[in-house]
C-alpha cells in the first residue's frame, strides 16, 4: 500500500486501483477526499477503481454522493467501479440508498 503527499492511501495491482478510505466521511471531509481520488484516478487510468471502506468509521449521505460521483467519473473514463468491505453501519446506509443496485459491493477486501 502506498500513501501520497496528500494523505491518500492506495494500492495498484494488475489493472486495479484500490483506494483505502478512512475515518469519517461527511460533508466536511467529502470535498477533500473527492479531489484526492479524482486526481489519482485521472493520473492512473486503471481498468477498475475499488473504494475500500473497511477503515471508514462513519458515513452519512455526503458519502453516498461521494461514491455516486466517483462511479460517474469512473464510468465516463471507461473504468470499472466497485465498493469493498463496508462495515455493518456503512452497509446500512448503502442499503437505504439501494447502492447495490447501482454498483457492485464485495464483502471481503480483494486486491
Amino acid at each position, binding site marked *: 500500500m502506498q500513501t501520497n503527499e496528500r494523505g491518500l492511501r492506495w494500492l495498484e495491482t494488475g489493472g486495479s486501483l484500490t483506494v483505502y478510505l478512512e475515518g469519517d466521511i*461527511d*460533508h*466536511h471531509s467529502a470535498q477533500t477526499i473527492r479531489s484526492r481520488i479524482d486526481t489519482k484516478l485521472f493520473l492512473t487510468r486503471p481498468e477498475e477503481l475499488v473504494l475500500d471502506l473497511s477503515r471508514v468509521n462513519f458515513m452519512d*449521505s455526503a458519502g453516498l*454522493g461521494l461514491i*455516486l460521483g466517483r462511479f460517474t467519473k469512473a464510468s465516463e473514463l471507461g473504468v470499472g467501479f466497485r465498493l469493498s468491505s463496508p462495515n455493518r453501519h456503512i452497509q446500512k*446506509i448503502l442499503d437505504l440508498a439501494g447502492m447495490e443496485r447501482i454498483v457492485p459491493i464485495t464483502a471481503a477486501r480483494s486486491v
Partner: protein
Amino acid sequence: MDNLKQAPVPEEQKSTDCRILNECRIAFPSLSANEGYARACAAAFCAQLDPTATEISDIKCAVSEGVTNAIVHGYKDSIGEIIMTLRMLPDRVVKIEIRDKGCGIEDVSRARTPLFTTDPAGERSGMGFTVMESFMDSLRVLSNPGKGTKITMTKKFSLIPRNRR
C-alpha cells in the same frame, strides 16, 4: 463567537416539559468542521442509555444530516448560529432538535422527497431527510422561509442486555 456560548436562552425555548430527565443545549457556528462536533455531542449524550453500536451510529448519522442541512441549505454561503437541543425523556426516548435562523425551506414536503437536491452539481445525494426518517423513529420539520428551520427527531432506545447484543 464567544457571544454564541453566552447567548441567553429565549423564554420560548426554556423547557417547561416536566417529563424531561436531562437536557443539553449547544450552540455553534455553521462551519462544516462542526458536523463532527455535533455528532460527538449527541453520541455522548445518548451514551447515558447504554445504547447499542447501531443505535449510536443511527443517532450520529441523523444529527450529521440535520446539521449539514442547516450549514449547506439554511445558511448557504453565510455563517450563522445552529442550536442543537438534546432531551432525554422517560422510557428511553431521546428527542433531538436542530434549529437554524437561515433561509428556511420553501416546500418542505418536496425537500423530504428521496433524491431531491437543490444542488445536483455539488454531488449531494438528496438523501438527507430520508436518512433522518429511516434512522430515527420520528421526524418533524418546521420551516419558515426567510426565518429558519427547526428539525425535531425522536428515537426510543432498546433495552438489550449486553450479553445478547
